[in-house]
């Protein structure tokens, strides 16, 4: 087993007009997917992220306030995953409900030390 990180970007562009019922149904799908990942032993952990934040850059340590990217590019959360290889990790990611709402999953292998 190798470790992978899923980065979730975008999705739910219409959330300002989506109905509570639609959002709840979407959330339910996420919960079911997460439950499956856990049951299958792929889940190692993860957290949702706030779109806001601060960025510190350069030797002058300049602090800028977020968000830093277009809505579509904002990372909304990450998961740490166990999978056989990159292809397997990508296959698992296909089940992610974010794909039904115009979002993306970026799969990145964790580089072993």
């Amino acid at each position, binding site marked *: 087993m190798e470790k992978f990180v899923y980065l979730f970007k975008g999705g739910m562009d219409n959330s300002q007009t989506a109905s*509570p019922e639609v959002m709840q149904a*979407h959330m339910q799908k996420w919960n079911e997917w*997460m439950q499956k990942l856990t049951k299958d032993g792929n889940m190692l952990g*993860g957290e949702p992220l706030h779109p806001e934040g601060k960025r510190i850059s350069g030797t002058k340590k300049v602090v800028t306030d977020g968000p830093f990217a277009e809505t579509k590019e904002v990372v909304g959360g990450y998961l740490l995953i166990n999978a056989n290889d990159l292809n397997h990790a990508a296959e698992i990611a296909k089940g992610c*409900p974010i794909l039904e709402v115009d979002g993306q999953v970026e799969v990145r292998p964790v580089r072993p030390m």
Partner: protein
Amino acid sequence: MAIQQDNEVTKVVDHLFRHESGKMVAVLTRVFGFANIEQAEDIVQDTIIRALETWKFGKVPDNPQAWLYRTAKNKAIDLIRHQKVKHKIESELAPLLKSEYTLVPSMNEMFRENEIKDSQLRMMFACCHPAINTESQLTLMLKTLCGLSTREIGNAFLSSEDTIQKRLYRTKEKIKEGHISLDYPGADNMPARVDTVLKALYLLFNEGYNSSHPEKLIRDDLCEEALRLTLLLTENPKTNLPQTNALLALMCYQASRFGARLDDKGFMVLLKDQDRTHWNKFLIERGNNYLNLSADGNRIHEYHLEAAIASVHANAKSYEETNWSMILQLYNNLLDRTNNPMVAINRCIILGEVEGYNKAIEELEKIKGLNGNCYYNTSLGEMYLKAGDKNNGIKLFQNALELTSSNAEIELIRRKINLCK
């Protein structure tokens, strides 16, 4: 890491977002005043989005409702502190919200269960103000109290989202311009105002119950919302009138048949052919209970009669053992009060069971001006069929076929035509 391997994902109760949205919009609109209703709606939408984004990772809080209220409350407090409320707050709470001493405690108070219910009732009265037409009353209730989106409302009424949006806009403007407040009507006006609310809820329920909408789910939702709001009216002494209980009883009886009204293919099953073991006994008992509670005061309302009719059906062991003469009496009474042609048709059908189908045909043919009505044609056709006159039966069913575009009805009528052959 936040997610443990053995973490059981909590299933959020059905419609939690929708129901809590309705409650929070009612509360925040009361806090901000109706002029700021859009801001109340925005806060609630943002709250739901935040819940979605946070909870979808599998960490639903132990008390999701409290989480939502806390988030919405904090957003509202933030808005007030930074004076970002668009229009001046003109609610009765305005003085309390201006001072830091009382801002947070007052907001906390407004999110208590009793105050939430109170806000919902006030909102119901505002939505069902007599100056607003019925169509707009229903639309505004579904949006503000039931948490449906414009798209969902459009879908329910088979109108475009655009139409619903315009209607909502006009209705809200009317409330703002008319300075319709979120106060309770005075004691003198109360019964009349309650009647207007009940009428809207009755229509909302019927919209769900009778509509030929292709999606069953939407119809059930409308009925469920109407039931929920009527129940709310019975929980407050000001609005818990005999007619409120009568209407709630009627809704319970009708809703008890949901499980038996459609067959496996989604087609309508007539009362006569329904499997009564699939009727919901709990709802029938609730219906009996509310009907008892409604027997108070000296005024008989139409809902009393309709509920009583539904009660005889619901409590009959079989179609054959139904107390038809009792139902006929109730229909006679009901017809005396309303000029509703549907009531007249239904009365004739009952008459058929009591005095014979030929008598029913005779009386139905006396009703004028309904030849272009689908239900009239199917009812008369049914009476002819039962009386053994298949030729006339087939003619009427064929008329009826031309008068409906509902697939469920077309299928039902086709089956009838086959019976006539």
